[in-house]
């Protein structure tokens, strides 16, 4: 996960989300709906966005996991993180980690998405604060920066 190998002993009932938050104290992924509709628990599993509240921890064994904590490089923010800040795409911040990771998965597959493709990719990440406009702008701007 995030470039490092972790060995964790867990109760098979535990979801990946609860292992991240409780066993590994990585609280970037959030618990909100608990049944895979809000996306606040989104992490990347083998490069694909998934709801970690739906993934049982043992299923993540041997797979590559990326959480929000893995994006910055020391003090250097990932272009998506910077873009979200610069475009006012963060209000309460609760949806933000999941939003950024969904965007990251999109840009890895489609480096130059149009607005529709961006909105479709984040359709599984709900935001109660922003109304999504600034989030879409931030992702578009980041995509342009990342291609360069």
């Amino acid at each position, binding site marked *: 996960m995030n470039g490092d190998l972790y060995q964790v002993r867990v*109760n098979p*009932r535990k979801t990946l989300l609860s292992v991240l938050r409780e066993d590994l104290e990585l609280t970037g992924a959030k618990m909100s709906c608990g*049944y895979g509709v809000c996306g606040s628990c989104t992490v990347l599993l083998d490069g694909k966005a*998934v*709801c970690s509240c739906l993934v049982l921890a043992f*299923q993540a064994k041997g797979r590559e996991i990326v959480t929000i904590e893995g994006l910055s490089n020391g003090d250097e923010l990932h272009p998506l993180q910077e873009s979200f800040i610069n475009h006012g795409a963060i209000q309460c911040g609760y949806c933000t980690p999941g939003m950024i990771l*969904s965007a990251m998965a999109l840009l890895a597959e489609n480096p130059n998405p149009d607005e529709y493709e961006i909105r479709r990719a984040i359709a*599984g990440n709900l935001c109660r604060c922003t109304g999504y406009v600034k989030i879409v702008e931030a992702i578009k701007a980041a995509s342009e920066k990342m291609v360069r």
Partner: protein
Amino acid sequence: MADAAPLGYFEPETIEEACHLLSSHRGQARIIAGGVSLSVLMGQKLMMPKYLVSIKGIKSLNFIGHEPGAGLKIGAATTHADIEKSSLLQEKMPLLSQVAGMVGSAQVRNWGTIGGNLCHADPAADLPPALMALCAQLRLQSSAGARTMPIDKFFLDYFQTAVAEEEILTEINIPQMPPSAGASFIKFTPRSKMDTAVVAVAVYVQIEPAAERIVDVKIALGAVGPTPIRALKAEGALKGQKIDQSTIEQIAELAKEECSPASDVKASAEYRKEMVGVFVKRATKEALERARANRTQAP
């Protein structure tokens, strides 16, 4: 949701191993692929298995293939995302790719599987009516043997299927579409772009292009009853008919009578019935357009 009762899990590498595990833990074990639906049921304590048999790692359940003349074969543990993005399906059965792309969100599509979706049997799910209109056959395997079932017989009631306790759904087979055939699927989600269907309509038609006559038709409706249903009376009225507006209006009315939707927070039963009429018309027209466009294609 942590629970005091211990949960055992197995990660078999073959279908046979998985079947054996189901038989030897009679009634206490459940199959898990992604677990998108199962996790929710377990969290709500609607299902409390003692053992989980994970089939995620079984390679022979995760594939998309085409057999010339026969049709398409999809492993039950194939994710919706893989079905959506499959260039083979986009070429041979684009409707299926399109429908798989409508399931949930990107996160759900990346982890959930076609087999899991079918076995969960949510009456408002998207793939079931589409697969019904395409006359899919389902392959079920257990330690006692294997059987094939037409999808029409698969859904018994809310969240209940014909899968026996020790059986695993292994494969979904979709026959190749003949020439001059087309299909359409409409998922009606009035509340927002991403939602469970309030009404889902799938229509398949095969026409006789010269006579502009309908040779075969299948109409499947989702989210308007305890299971997805075929509108058999509407199909019967349409088969053999010439294609014209009044015929389409007539079958839309028949389809409305054949469904028994419930009212819920998303829509009333009356509204759902009304919308069945609207979308059967639209889907039939779209399927006919595609059937006409297909006339030059060989199977």
